[in-house]
Protein backbone atom coordinates (compact mmCIF):
# COMPACT_ATOMS: atom_id res chain seq x y z
CA UNK A 1 0.00 0.00 0.00
CA UNK A 2 1.27 3.49 -0.82
CA UNK A 3 2.55 5.59 2.04
CA UNK A 4 0.20 8.37 3.09
CA UNK A 5 2.95 10.20 4.96
CA UNK A 6 6.46 10.10 3.66
CA UNK A 7 9.45 11.72 5.32
CA UNK A 8 12.79 11.93 3.51
CA UNK A 9 16.17 12.89 4.95
CA UNK A 10 14.56 15.24 7.41
CA UNK A 11 16.92 17.20 9.67
CA UNK A 12 16.38 20.03 12.07
CA UNK A 13 18.99 21.99 13.92
CA UNK A 14 18.32 25.06 15.99
CA UNK A 15 20.35 28.26 16.01
CA UNK A 16 22.03 27.30 19.27
CA UNK A 17 23.54 24.30 17.47
CA UNK A 18 21.19 21.73 19.00
CA UNK A 19 20.26 19.08 16.48
CA UNK A 20 16.70 17.94 17.11
CA UNK A 21 16.43 15.58 14.13
CA UNK A 22 19.14 13.78 12.19
CA UNK A 23 18.35 12.60 8.69
CA UNK A 24 15.04 10.91 9.47
CA UNK A 25 13.35 8.71 6.85
CA UNK A 26 9.90 7.32 7.49
CA UNK A 27 6.93 6.00 5.51
CA UNK A 28 3.57 5.73 7.19
CA UNK A 29 0.96 3.53 5.63
CA UNK A 30 -2.68 4.34 5.28
CA UNK A 31 -4.87 3.05 8.07
CA UNK A 32 -2.15 2.11 10.52
CA UNK A 33 -1.41 3.31 14.03
CA UNK A 34 2.22 4.24 14.31
CA UNK A 35 3.67 5.04 17.70
CA UNK A 36 6.77 7.19 17.86
CA UNK A 37 8.40 6.13 21.03
CA UNK A 38 11.26 7.89 22.73
CA UNK A 39 12.34 9.65 25.88
CA UNK A 40 11.56 13.33 26.45
CA UNK A 41 13.54 15.56 24.12
CA UNK A 42 14.16 12.77 21.62
CA UNK A 43 12.71 14.72 18.70
CA UNK A 44 9.23 13.15 18.47
CA UNK A 45 7.35 16.43 18.70
CA UNK A 46 9.78 18.14 16.34
CA UNK A 47 9.17 15.45 13.75
CA UNK A 48 5.40 15.74 13.78
CA UNK A 49 5.58 19.54 14.11
CA UNK A 50 7.48 19.71 10.84
CA UNK A 51 4.94 17.49 9.08
CA UNK A 52 2.05 19.58 10.45
CA UNK A 53 3.60 22.94 9.58
CA UNK A 54 4.50 24.24 13.05
CA UNK A 55 8.26 24.01 12.61
CA UNK A 56 10.42 24.54 9.55
CA UNK A 57 12.79 21.76 8.61
CA UNK A 58 16.47 22.60 8.16
CA UNK A 59 16.75 20.12 5.32
CA UNK A 60 14.86 17.22 3.80
CA UNK A 61 11.20 16.97 2.91
CA UNK A 62 7.88 15.52 3.98
CA UNK A 63 4.75 14.74 2.00
CA UNK A 64 1.22 13.93 3.08
CA UNK A 65 -1.00 12.21 0.52
CA UNK A 66 1.71 13.01 -2.04
CA UNK A 67 1.61 16.76 -1.29
CA UNK A 68 4.73 18.50 -0.03
CA UNK A 69 4.08 20.01 3.40
CA UNK A 70 5.79 23.27 2.41
CA UNK A 71 5.23 23.63 -1.34
CA UNK A 72 1.65 22.32 -1.39
CA UNK A 73 0.84 23.22 2.21
CA UNK A 74 -2.85 23.82 1.54
CA UNK A 75 -3.50 20.36 0.11
CA UNK A 76 -1.18 18.68 2.60
CA UNK A 77 -2.67 20.35 5.67
CA UNK A 78 -6.25 19.67 4.54
CA UNK A 79 -5.47 16.00 5.09
CA UNK A 80 -4.01 16.46 8.56
CA UNK A 81 -5.50 16.81 12.01
CA UNK A 82 -3.23 17.60 14.94
CA UNK A 83 -3.93 17.11 18.61
CA UNK A 84 -1.26 19.09 20.46
CA UNK A 85 0.47 18.01 23.62
CA UNK A 86 -0.58 21.00 25.68
CA UNK A 87 -4.23 21.86 26.18
CA UNK A 88 -4.71 25.06 24.19
CA UNK A 89 -8.29 26.25 23.95
CA UNK A 90 -10.00 29.61 23.91
CA UNK A 91 -11.50 29.59 27.42
CA UNK A 92 -14.70 31.53 26.62
CA UNK A 93 -15.56 29.65 23.47
CA UNK A 94 -18.22 26.97 23.62
CA UNK A 95 -17.34 23.46 22.48
CA UNK A 96 -19.51 23.62 19.38
CA UNK A 97 -18.16 27.07 18.43
CA UNK A 98 -14.62 25.79 18.81
CA UNK A 99 -15.40 23.02 16.33
CA UNK A 100 -17.11 25.37 13.90
CA UNK A 101 -14.12 27.70 14.05
CA UNK A 102 -11.66 24.94 13.22
CA UNK A 103 -13.83 23.58 10.43
CA UNK A 104 -13.99 27.08 8.97
CA UNK A 105 -10.22 27.45 9.13
CA UNK A 106 -9.98 24.39 6.95
CA UNK A 107 -12.22 26.05 4.42
CA UNK A 108 -15.27 23.89 5.11
CA UNK A 109 -18.84 24.93 5.68
CA UNK A 110 -20.58 24.11 8.92
CA UNK A 111 -21.91 20.55 8.96
CA UNK A 112 -24.10 20.15 12.06
CA UNK A 113 -24.72 16.43 11.50
CA UNK A 114 -21.02 15.64 11.25
CA UNK A 115 -20.11 17.73 14.30
CA UNK A 116 -22.87 16.03 16.27
CA UNK A 117 -21.53 12.65 15.23
CA UNK A 118 -17.96 13.54 16.27
CA UNK A 119 -19.06 14.96 19.61
CA UNK A 120 -21.23 11.95 20.32
CA UNK A 121 -18.40 9.54 19.61
CA UNK A 122 -16.21 11.47 22.03
CA UNK A 123 -19.02 11.65 24.63
CA UNK A 124 -19.08 15.44 24.42
CA UNK A 125 -22.47 16.06 22.85
CA UNK A 126 -24.12 17.05 26.14
CA UNK A 127 -21.30 19.55 26.67
CA UNK A 128 -21.60 21.21 23.30
CA UNK A 129 -22.79 24.53 24.71
CA UNK A 130 -20.40 24.57 27.66
CA UNK A 131 -17.49 26.99 27.62
CA UNK A 132 -14.24 25.12 27.25
CA UNK A 133 -12.93 26.52 30.53
CA UNK A 134 -15.78 24.79 32.38
CA UNK A 135 -14.65 21.35 31.25
CA UNK A 136 -12.46 18.83 33.07
CA UNK A 137 -8.96 18.06 31.82
CA UNK A 138 -10.05 14.86 30.13
CA UNK A 139 -12.92 16.59 28.36
CA UNK A 140 -10.61 19.36 27.16
CA UNK A 141 -8.36 16.75 25.60
CA UNK A 142 -11.33 15.21 23.88
CA UNK A 143 -12.35 18.66 22.61
CA UNK A 144 -8.88 18.95 21.07
CA UNK A 145 -9.40 15.61 19.38
CA UNK A 146 -12.84 16.68 18.16
CA UNK A 147 -11.34 19.87 16.76
CA UNK A 148 -8.65 17.88 14.98
CA UNK A 149 -11.29 15.59 13.47
CA UNK A 150 -13.93 18.11 12.49
CA UNK A 151 -12.50 18.82 9.04
CA UNK A 152 -12.43 15.09 8.23
CA UNK A 153 -8.66 14.55 8.04
CA UNK A 154 -7.17 11.35 6.70
CA UNK A 155 -4.20 11.46 9.04
CA UNK A 156 -4.38 12.26 12.71
CA UNK A 157 -1.33 13.25 14.73
CA UNK A 158 -1.59 12.86 18.48
CA UNK A 159 1.26 14.45 20.38
CA UNK A 160 1.60 12.71 23.73
CA UNK A 161 -2.15 12.18 24.06
CA UNK A 162 -1.89 10.71 27.53
CA UNK A 163 1.01 12.63 29.08
CA UNK A 164 0.07 13.50 32.63
CA UNK A 165 -3.26 11.72 32.38
CA UNK A 166 -4.56 9.28 34.97
CA UNK A 167 -4.84 5.58 34.22
CA UNK A 168 -8.57 5.55 33.66
CA UNK A 169 -8.45 8.42 31.22
CA UNK A 170 -5.53 6.82 29.41
CA UNK A 171 -7.57 3.69 28.78
CA UNK A 172 -10.40 5.87 27.57
CA UNK A 173 -8.06 7.64 25.13
CA UNK A 174 -6.86 4.30 23.82
CA UNK A 175 -10.43 3.29 23.13
CA UNK A 176 -10.95 6.53 21.25
CA UNK A 177 -7.83 5.90 19.16
CA UNK A 178 -8.91 2.34 18.36
CA UNK A 179 -12.33 3.60 17.35
CA UNK A 180 -10.72 6.16 15.02
CA UNK A 181 -8.60 3.49 13.41
CA UNK A 182 -11.74 1.43 12.88
CA UNK A 183 -13.19 4.48 11.10
CA UNK A 184 -10.24 4.39 8.70
CA UNK A 185 -8.11 7.21 10.06
CA UNK A 186 -4.34 6.84 9.94
CA UNK A 187 -2.92 7.68 13.34
CA UNK A 188 0.55 8.76 14.35
CA UNK A 189 1.06 9.24 18.04
CA UNK A 190 4.08 10.15 20.07
CA UNK A 191 4.54 8.75 23.49
CA UNK A 192 7.14 8.01 26.06
CA UNK A 193 4.96 5.38 27.66
CA UNK A 194 5.99 2.03 26.33
CA UNK A 195 2.81 0.41 27.50
CA UNK A 196 0.91 2.84 25.33
CA UNK A 197 2.76 1.82 22.18
CA UNK A 198 2.39 -1.80 23.20
CA UNK A 199 -1.33 -1.43 23.79
CA UNK A 200 -2.46 0.34 20.63
CA UNK A 201 0.23 0.60 17.96
CA UNK A 202 0.50 -1.48 14.81
CA UNK A 203 4.05 -0.32 14.24
CA UNK A 204 6.53 1.31 16.56
CA UNK A 205 9.25 3.78 15.65
CA UNK A 206 11.93 4.31 18.24
CA UNK A 207 13.50 7.78 18.38
CA UNK A 208 16.40 8.78 20.53
CA UNK A 209 18.55 11.91 20.32
CA UNK A 210 17.01 12.96 17.02
CA UNK A 211 17.61 9.64 15.27
CA UNK A 212 14.96 7.18 14.21
CA UNK A 213 16.60 4.01 15.43
CA UNK A 214 14.10 1.63 13.88
CA UNK A 215 10.52 1.25 12.72
CA UNK A 216 9.01 -2.18 12.97
CA UNK A 217 5.76 -4.00 13.43
CA UNK A 218 5.18 -4.18 17.13
CA UNK A 219 5.13 -7.98 17.16
CA UNK A 220 8.23 -8.27 14.96
CA UNK A 221 10.05 -5.85 17.15
CA UNK A 222 9.24 -7.81 20.24
CA UNK A 223 10.04 -11.11 18.59
CA UNK A 224 13.25 -9.91 17.04
CA UNK A 225 14.56 -8.10 20.01
CA UNK A 226 12.73 -9.93 22.72
CA UNK A 227 14.39 -12.17 25.24
CA UNK A 228 12.50 -14.68 27.28
CA UNK A 229 13.26 -15.49 30.85
CA UNK A 230 12.66 -18.78 32.54
CA UNK A 231 12.52 -18.80 36.32
CA UNK A 232 13.10 -22.12 37.95
CA UNK A 233 12.09 -22.43 41.56
CA UNK A 234 13.99 -25.06 43.56
CA UNK A 235 12.87 -27.34 46.39
CA UNK A 236 16.17 -26.90 48.22
CA UNK A 237 18.48 -23.89 48.31
CA UNK A 238 21.61 -24.22 46.24
CA UNK A 239 24.93 -24.07 48.12
CA UNK A 240 27.27 -23.97 45.15
CA UNK A 241 26.51 -23.74 41.46
CA UNK A 242 27.24 -27.17 39.96
CA UNK A 243 29.97 -27.18 37.27
CA UNK A 244 27.58 -28.67 34.75
CA UNK A 245 25.25 -25.62 34.96
CA UNK A 246 27.93 -22.93 34.56
CA UNK A 247 27.69 -22.64 30.72
CA UNK A 248 24.05 -21.50 31.08
CA UNK A 249 25.10 -18.30 32.90
CA UNK A 250 22.23 -18.62 35.33
CA UNK A 251 21.36 -15.95 37.86
CA UNK A 252 20.70 -17.40 41.26
CA UNK A 253 18.62 -15.69 43.86
CA UNK A 254 19.22 -17.39 47.19
CA UNK A 255 16.30 -15.66 48.89
CA UNK A 256 13.78 -16.97 46.46
CA UNK A 257 15.62 -20.22 45.72
CA UNK A 258 15.23 -19.34 42.08
CA UNK A 259 17.43 -19.86 39.03
CA UNK A 260 16.89 -17.43 36.18
CA UNK A 261 17.74 -18.44 32.65
CA UNK A 262 17.59 -15.90 29.79
CA UNK A 263 17.30 -17.02 26.19
CA UNK A 264 16.27 -15.63 22.83
CA UNK A 265 12.66 -16.44 22.19
CA UNK A 266 13.15 -17.09 18.49
CA UNK A 267 16.65 -18.56 18.67
CA UNK A 268 17.20 -21.86 16.87
CA UNK A 269 18.13 -23.60 20.07
CA UNK A 270 16.65 -22.27 23.22
CA UNK A 271 18.67 -24.63 25.38
CA UNK A 272 15.73 -25.35 27.62
CA UNK A 273 15.72 -29.10 27.05
CA UNK A 274 19.41 -29.53 27.82
CA UNK A 275 19.11 -27.26 30.86
CA UNK A 276 16.41 -29.51 32.29
CA UNK A 277 18.53 -32.56 31.54
CA UNK A 278 21.55 -31.00 33.26
CA UNK A 279 19.47 -29.87 36.25
CA UNK A 280 18.33 -33.44 36.63
CA UNK A 281 21.93 -34.74 36.30
CA UNK A 282 23.01 -32.35 39.04
CA UNK A 283 20.27 -33.80 41.23
CA UNK A 284 18.38 -30.58 41.63
CA UNK A 285 14.68 -30.97 42.32
CA UNK A 286 12.36 -28.37 40.77
CA UNK A 287 9.34 -26.92 42.44
CA UNK A 288 7.96 -24.62 39.74
CA UNK A 289 8.84 -23.18 36.33
CA UNK A 290 7.68 -19.93 34.83
CA UNK A 291 8.60 -18.13 31.59
CA UNK A 292 7.90 -14.60 30.53
CA UNK A 293 8.33 -12.45 27.42
CA UNK A 294 10.38 -9.29 27.80
CA UNK A 295 8.27 -6.16 27.44
CA UNK A 296 8.71 -3.38 24.93
CA UNK A 297 10.27 -1.48 27.79
CA UNK A 298 13.14 -3.96 28.10
CA UNK A 299 13.64 -3.80 24.34
CA UNK A 300 13.56 -0.05 24.32
CA UNK A 301 16.02 0.33 27.14
CA UNK A 302 18.32 -2.10 25.34
CA UNK A 303 18.09 -0.11 22.11
CA UNK A 304 18.65 3.30 23.61
CA UNK A 305 21.51 2.14 25.81
CA UNK A 306 23.08 0.16 23.00
CA UNK A 307 23.27 3.25 20.87
Amino acid at each position, binding site marked *: MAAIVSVKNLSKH*YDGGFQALKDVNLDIEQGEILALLGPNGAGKTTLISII*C*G*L*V*KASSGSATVGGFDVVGD*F*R*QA*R*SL*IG*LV*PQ*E*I*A*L*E*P*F*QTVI*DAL*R*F*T*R*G*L*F*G*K*RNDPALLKDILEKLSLWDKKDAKTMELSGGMKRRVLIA*KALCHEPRVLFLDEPTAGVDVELRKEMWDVVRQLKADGVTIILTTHYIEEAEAIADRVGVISKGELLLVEKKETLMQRMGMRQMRVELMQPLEVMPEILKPYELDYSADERTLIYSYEANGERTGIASLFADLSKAGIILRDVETRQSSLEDIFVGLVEGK
Partner: protein
Amino acid sequence: MNFQAVRSIYSFEMARFFRTLSQSLISPVLSTSLYFIVFGAAIGSRIEEIDGVSYGAFIVPGLIMLSVLTQSISNASFGIYFPKFLGSIYELHTAPVSFVEIVLGYVGAAATKSALIGLVILATAEFFVDFEILHWGAMLAFLALTCISFSLFGFIIGIWSKNFEQLQMVPLLVITPLVFLGGSFYSISMLPPFWQTVTLFNPVVYLISGFRWAFYGAADINIGVSLMMIAVFMFICLGIIAWTFKTGYKIKT
Protein backbone atom coordinates in the same frame (compact mmCIF):
# COMPACT_ATOMS: atom_id res chain seq x y z
CA MET B 1 -7.63 31.71 -1.20
CA ASN B 2 -9.53 30.22 1.73
CA PHE B 3 -12.43 32.65 2.25
CA GLN B 4 -14.17 30.37 4.68
CA ALA B 5 -11.13 30.67 6.97
CA VAL B 6 -11.19 34.48 6.74
CA ARG B 7 -14.85 34.44 7.68
CA SER B 8 -14.18 32.03 10.52
CA ILE B 9 -11.45 34.19 12.07
CA TYR B 10 -13.41 37.38 11.47
CA SER B 11 -16.60 36.18 13.09
CA PHE B 12 -14.70 34.63 15.98
CA GLU B 13 -12.98 37.95 16.70
CA MET B 14 -16.21 39.91 16.32
CA ALA B 15 -17.90 37.49 18.71
CA ARG B 16 -15.30 38.41 21.30
CA PHE B 17 -16.13 42.10 20.75
CA PHE B 18 -19.84 41.61 21.20
CA ARG B 19 -19.34 39.32 24.18
CA THR B 20 -17.51 42.12 25.94
CA LEU B 21 -19.57 44.87 24.40
CA SER B 22 -19.85 46.94 27.56
CA GLN B 23 -16.08 46.99 28.09
CA SER B 24 -15.42 47.48 24.40
CA LEU B 25 -17.68 50.50 24.10
CA ILE B 26 -18.21 52.06 27.49
CA SER B 27 -14.60 52.86 28.29
CA PRO B 28 -13.76 54.73 25.07
CA VAL B 29 -17.10 56.53 25.08
CA LEU B 30 -16.76 57.52 28.73
CA SER B 31 -13.20 58.83 28.38
CA THR B 32 -14.06 60.80 25.25
CA SER B 33 -17.11 62.30 26.94
CA LEU B 34 -14.83 63.48 29.73
CA TYR B 35 -12.56 65.14 27.18
CA PHE B 36 -15.56 66.91 25.68
CA ILE B 37 -16.68 68.14 29.07
CA VAL B 38 -13.24 69.32 30.18
CA PHE B 39 -11.74 70.59 26.95
CA GLY B 40 -14.84 71.33 24.95
CA ALA B 41 -17.14 72.88 27.53
CA ALA B 42 -15.01 74.01 30.48
CA ILE B 43 -11.77 75.19 28.87
CA GLY B 44 -13.01 75.45 25.30
CA SER B 45 -15.43 78.27 26.08
CA ARG B 46 -12.44 80.47 26.91
CA ILE B 47 -10.44 79.58 23.79
CA GLU B 48 -10.88 81.46 20.54
CA GLU B 49 -12.09 79.81 17.37
CA ILE B 50 -9.45 77.96 15.36
CA ASP B 51 -9.67 78.19 11.55
CA GLY B 52 -13.18 79.50 12.00
CA VAL B 53 -14.32 76.50 14.07
CA SER B 54 -15.23 76.61 17.77
CA TYR B 55 -12.69 74.86 19.98
CA GLY B 56 -15.20 72.23 21.08
CA ALA B 57 -15.88 71.27 17.47
CA PHE B 58 -12.20 71.55 16.56
CA ILE B 59 -11.17 68.74 18.89
CA VAL B 60 -13.87 66.29 17.72
CA PRO B 61 -11.84 64.74 14.85
CA GLY B 62 -8.71 64.56 17.01
CA LEU B 63 -10.55 62.83 19.85
CA ILE B 64 -12.09 60.30 17.51
CA MET B 65 -8.63 59.59 16.08
CA LEU B 66 -7.20 59.24 19.58
CA SER B 67 -9.68 56.48 20.39
CA VAL B 68 -9.55 54.86 16.99
CA LEU B 69 -5.76 54.62 16.98
CA THR B 70 -5.46 53.17 20.45
CA GLN B 71 -8.40 50.83 19.90
CA SER B 72 -7.07 49.59 16.56
CA ILE B 73 -3.72 48.80 18.08
CA SER B 74 -5.03 47.20 21.24
CA ASN B 75 -7.71 45.14 19.46
CA ALA B 76 -5.40 43.85 16.75
CA SER B 77 -2.44 43.20 19.02
CA PHE B 78 -4.56 41.42 21.62
CA GLY B 79 -6.43 39.45 18.95
CA ILE B 80 -3.30 37.73 17.70
CA TYR B 81 -1.34 37.77 20.97
CA PHE B 82 -4.00 35.95 22.99
CA PRO B 83 -3.98 32.73 20.91
CA LYS B 84 -0.19 32.91 21.04
CA PHE B 85 -0.36 33.18 24.82
CA LEU B 86 -2.90 30.35 25.10
CA GLY B 87 -1.08 28.17 22.60
CA SER B 88 -4.18 27.85 20.45
CA ILE B 89 -2.29 29.58 17.63
CA TYR B 90 -1.13 26.11 16.58
CA GLU B 91 -4.41 25.87 14.73
CA LEU B 92 -3.49 28.71 12.42
CA HIS B 93 -0.16 27.09 11.61
CA THR B 94 -1.64 23.71 10.89
CA ALA B 95 -4.66 24.90 8.90
CA PRO B 96 -4.52 25.41 5.14
CA VAL B 97 -4.28 29.18 5.47
CA SER B 98 -1.56 31.62 4.46
CA PHE B 99 -0.74 34.91 6.13
CA VAL B 100 -3.15 36.63 3.75
CA GLU B 101 -6.20 34.90 5.29
CA ILE B 102 -4.88 35.35 8.82
CA VAL B 103 -4.27 39.07 8.34
CA LEU B 104 -7.58 39.62 6.57
CA GLY B 105 -9.44 37.90 9.40
CA TYR B 106 -7.70 39.43 12.40
CA VAL B 107 -6.95 42.88 11.00
CA GLY B 108 -10.35 43.08 9.32
CA ALA B 109 -12.08 42.37 12.62
CA ALA B 110 -9.89 44.76 14.62
CA ALA B 111 -10.45 47.52 12.06
CA THR B 112 -14.21 46.92 12.08
CA LYS B 113 -14.32 47.16 15.86
CA SER B 114 -12.36 50.40 16.02
CA ALA B 115 -14.39 51.92 13.18
CA LEU B 116 -17.57 51.08 15.13
CA ILE B 117 -16.11 52.69 18.23
CA GLY B 118 -15.12 55.75 16.16
CA LEU B 119 -18.67 56.12 14.88
CA VAL B 120 -20.14 55.71 18.36
CA ILE B 121 -17.84 58.45 19.64
CA LEU B 122 -18.88 60.64 16.74
CA ALA B 123 -22.49 60.14 17.75
CA THR B 124 -21.60 60.89 21.39
CA ALA B 125 -19.91 64.13 20.34
CA GLU B 126 -23.24 65.30 18.95
CA PHE B 127 -24.51 65.51 22.54
CA PHE B 128 -21.75 67.89 23.59
CA VAL B 129 -20.90 70.13 20.66
CA ASP B 130 -22.41 71.45 17.46
CA PHE B 131 -20.51 70.50 14.35
CA GLU B 132 -21.10 69.62 10.75
CA ILE B 133 -19.25 67.28 8.47
CA LEU B 134 -18.41 68.77 5.07
CA HIS B 135 -17.06 65.69 3.32
CA TRP B 136 -18.81 62.57 4.58
CA GLY B 137 -17.19 60.32 2.02
CA ALA B 138 -13.68 61.53 2.82
CA MET B 139 -14.38 61.29 6.54
CA LEU B 140 -15.43 57.62 6.27
CA ALA B 141 -12.53 56.84 3.95
CA PHE B 142 -10.03 58.40 6.36
CA LEU B 143 -11.60 56.56 9.24
CA ALA B 144 -11.39 53.25 7.37
CA LEU B 145 -7.80 53.80 6.24
CA THR B 146 -6.70 54.72 9.73
CA CYS B 147 -8.44 51.74 11.29
CA ILE B 148 -6.88 49.37 8.79
CA SER B 149 -3.35 50.72 8.89
CA PHE B 150 -3.19 50.94 12.68
CA SER B 151 -4.77 47.52 13.08
CA LEU B 152 -1.97 46.23 10.85
CA PHE B 153 0.49 47.99 13.13
CA GLY B 154 -1.19 46.47 16.19
CA PHE B 155 -1.04 43.04 14.56
CA ILE B 156 2.75 43.41 14.24
CA ILE B 157 3.02 44.37 17.90
CA GLY B 158 0.91 41.36 18.85
CA ILE B 159 3.13 39.00 16.88
CA TRP B 160 6.37 40.43 18.16
CA SER B 161 5.38 40.76 21.81
CA LYS B 162 6.76 38.16 24.16
CA ASN B 163 4.59 39.13 27.13
CA PHE B 164 1.73 41.36 28.21
CA GLU B 165 4.11 44.19 29.23
CA GLN B 166 5.47 44.49 25.73
CA LEU B 167 1.94 44.37 24.41
CA GLN B 168 1.05 47.44 26.49
CA MET B 169 4.33 49.27 26.01
CA VAL B 170 4.02 50.47 22.43
CA PRO B 171 0.51 51.90 22.78
CA LEU B 172 1.43 53.53 26.06
CA LEU B 173 4.89 54.84 25.29
CA VAL B 174 4.64 55.56 21.59
CA ILE B 175 1.07 56.04 20.46
CA THR B 176 -0.33 58.17 23.28
CA PRO B 177 2.49 60.78 23.02
CA LEU B 178 2.27 60.77 19.23
CA VAL B 179 -1.47 61.39 19.37
CA PHE B 180 -1.21 64.13 21.97
CA LEU B 181 1.60 65.80 20.03
CA GLY B 182 -0.19 65.15 16.76
CA GLY B 183 -2.53 68.09 16.97
CA SER B 184 -5.59 66.49 18.56
CA PHE B 185 -6.13 69.52 20.76
CA TYR B 186 -4.46 72.30 18.79
CA SER B 187 -3.52 73.41 15.31
CA ILE B 188 0.09 72.78 14.29
CA SER B 189 0.32 76.42 13.24
CA MET B 190 0.01 77.40 16.93
CA LEU B 191 3.45 75.86 17.61
CA PRO B 192 6.80 77.70 17.28
CA PRO B 193 8.40 77.11 13.82
CA PHE B 194 11.02 74.64 15.14
CA TRP B 195 8.40 72.40 16.69
CA GLN B 196 6.26 72.64 13.58
CA THR B 197 9.13 71.03 11.65
CA VAL B 198 9.61 68.33 14.30
CA THR B 199 5.89 67.59 14.15
CA LEU B 200 6.11 66.72 10.47
CA PHE B 201 7.92 63.50 11.48
CA ASN B 202 4.91 62.43 13.50
CA PRO B 203 2.69 60.25 11.27
CA VAL B 204 -0.35 60.94 13.44
CA VAL B 205 -0.25 64.61 12.42
CA TYR B 206 -1.19 63.61 8.88
CA LEU B 207 -4.06 61.45 10.07
CA ILE B 208 -5.59 64.06 12.31
CA SER B 209 -5.04 66.85 9.82
CA GLY B 210 -6.63 64.88 7.00
CA PHE B 211 -9.50 63.75 9.18
CA ARG B 212 -10.14 67.30 10.33
CA TRP B 213 -10.13 68.47 6.71
CA ALA B 214 -12.92 65.97 6.01
CA PHE B 215 -14.93 67.60 8.80
CA TYR B 216 -14.32 71.30 8.30
CA GLY B 217 -12.49 71.71 4.99
CA ALA B 218 -9.45 73.27 6.66
CA ALA B 219 -6.20 71.44 7.45
CA ASP B 220 -2.64 72.01 8.63
CA ILE B 221 -1.32 69.81 5.87
CA ASN B 222 -2.40 69.35 2.29
CA ILE B 223 -5.00 66.59 2.08
CA GLY B 224 -3.13 64.80 -0.73
CA VAL B 225 0.03 64.63 1.38
CA SER B 226 -1.98 63.26 4.31
CA LEU B 227 -3.49 60.52 2.18
CA MET B 228 -0.14 59.59 0.76
CA MET B 229 1.44 59.35 4.21
CA ILE B 230 -1.27 56.99 5.46
CA ALA B 231 -0.86 54.86 2.36
CA VAL B 232 2.92 54.72 2.90
CA PHE B 233 2.44 53.75 6.54
CA MET B 234 -0.05 51.05 5.57
CA PHE B 235 2.28 49.54 2.97
CA ILE B 236 5.20 49.56 5.39
CA CYS B 237 3.07 47.60 7.88
CA LEU B 238 1.93 45.17 5.18
CA GLY B 239 5.53 44.70 4.11
CA ILE B 240 6.67 43.96 7.65
CA ILE B 241 3.86 41.43 8.14
CA ALA B 242 4.60 39.70 4.83
CA TRP B 243 8.28 39.49 5.76
CA THR B 244 7.45 38.24 9.27
CA PHE B 245 5.36 35.38 7.90
CA LYS B 246 7.72 34.57 5.06
CA THR B 247 10.72 34.19 7.31
CA GLY B 248 8.73 32.82 10.23
CA TYR B 249 10.35 35.48 12.44
CA LYS B 250 8.80 35.33 15.94
CA ILE B 251 6.27 32.82 14.59
CA LYS B 252 8.06 29.60 13.76
CA THR B 253 11.26 28.01 14.92
